[in-house]
């Protein structure tokens, strides 16, 4: 055990390991590329949907249960399916990661919107604001903390799952897990896993800090 940890430490700290197109630095960048692009794409799809459902109230059942569906979708299956349909390309990776992130963002966006006190909405209407103005000027700002939570949760999940890119021959930190598995090189597997965990935690803390920074001094909205 101690031997393994010692080897892991030397693997993580050797400069040779970090440099080059297959080095740790390159893999981290690839991993971030997949994760950030996928989360961004998911947000672009999910935010409007969540806002619409939250604003109109229609489709609430969908929003609440979509996260269950998204959680149940086996990523490996989806990656395989897209691979078989489209051949060797990066699509399987992005489709699965986006499919993972969209439900989380929709559900949390809806939750944020639904938590807005109806009296505030009424007051806004009473002041003369029309539907869309209520959405942008009242609901969205109030729902933002929960929306940010959704984006944060989605990002962490995507970062942790982007290892799947290596399953269909691409890079990222998953490369260490799959190659280490194939070569029975536990140090590589452990290294890859540790790096993914660290990356996910860093992403989580970074977005958490960002949220706190953006909403400093705000009264906490409904849970």
């Amino acid at each position, binding site marked *: 055990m101690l031997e393994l940890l010692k080897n892991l430490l030397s693997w993580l700290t050797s400069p040779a390991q970090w440099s080059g197109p297959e080095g740790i630095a390159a893999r981290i960048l690839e991993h971030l590329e997949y994760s950030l692009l996928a989360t961004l794409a998911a947000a672009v799809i999910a935010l409007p949907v969540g806002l619409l459902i939250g604003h109109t109230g229609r489709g609430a059942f969908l*929003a*609440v*249960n979509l*996260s*269950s*569906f998204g*959680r*149940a*979708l*086996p*990523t*490996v*299956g*989806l990656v*395989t*399916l897209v*691979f*078989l*349909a489209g051949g060797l390309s990066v699509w399987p990776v992005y489709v699965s990661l986006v499919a993972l992130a969209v439900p989380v963002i929709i*559900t949390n966006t809806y*939750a944020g919107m*639904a*938590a807005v006190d109806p009296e505030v909405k009424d007051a806004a209407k009473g002041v003369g604001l029309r539907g869309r103005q209520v959405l942008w000027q009242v609901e969205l700002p109030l729902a933002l903390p929960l929306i940010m939570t959704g984006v944060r949760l989605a990002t*962490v999940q995507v*970062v*942790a*799952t982007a*290892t799947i890119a290596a399953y269909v021959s691409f890079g990222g930190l*998953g490369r260490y*897990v*799959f190659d*280490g*598995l194939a070569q029975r090189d*536990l140090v590589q*597997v*452990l290294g*890859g*896993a*540790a790096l*993914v*965990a660290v990356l*996910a*935690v860093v992403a*989580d803390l970074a977005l958490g800090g960002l949220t706190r920074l953006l909403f400093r001094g705000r009264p906490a909205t409904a849970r």
Partner: protein
Amino acid sequence: MTLEWGWFPDHADEMARLTADHLATAVPAVVLGLLIALPLAVLAHRVRPLRGVILGASNILYTIPSLAFFVLLLPVTGLTRTTAIVGLTAYTLVVLVRNTVEGLDAVPAKVREASRAMGTRPLRTLLTVELPLALPVIMAGVRVATVMSISLVSVASYIGYGGLGQLFTDGFQRNFPTPVVAGVALTLLLALVADALLVTVQWLCTPWRRGTSRQRTFMRRKAA
């Protein structure tokens, strides 16, 4: 991508066997997770300094790629179903600890104090007052953990114990989408049925919660 529709009735036996196999890995993971999570959560809830450690450690555990976890367990538990179950338990554990702590947090301190004031010992208070009141949130956690467990089992196909996930590797190796579609559909169905079952169990076990619409909306949002 065309589907071979004749494949489905032809492989009904295999699909049933793989589904049973799938459950035999997913269910023990949730049960074990719950058994470990409950005491851990109580500790995190009661003992201030441990709370940060336990919740922090579980957050980190959650981010470890599941495949890596299985592979790292291989030398310890061998190429057996146990490896898959233990690996999955780590993930269900994280969800269940989080939700149980949250559930216990939601119990108003006054209720606990009232119970203690009546002379009830802490353990009895926990079992007869706090846990039942925390039950909705805990059950929400069990639901999430179950669905997640059912989905994650397929990752264990990489070490040969993926239940319905075996259909994915099979289809992948042979360039054959039909079993993959079957696997995805059945996994989703399984998760849906499990979720519905747990909702029913929760509803049956918490009669006092079949309350006003406001309470129900709150609980529904908690579960999402």
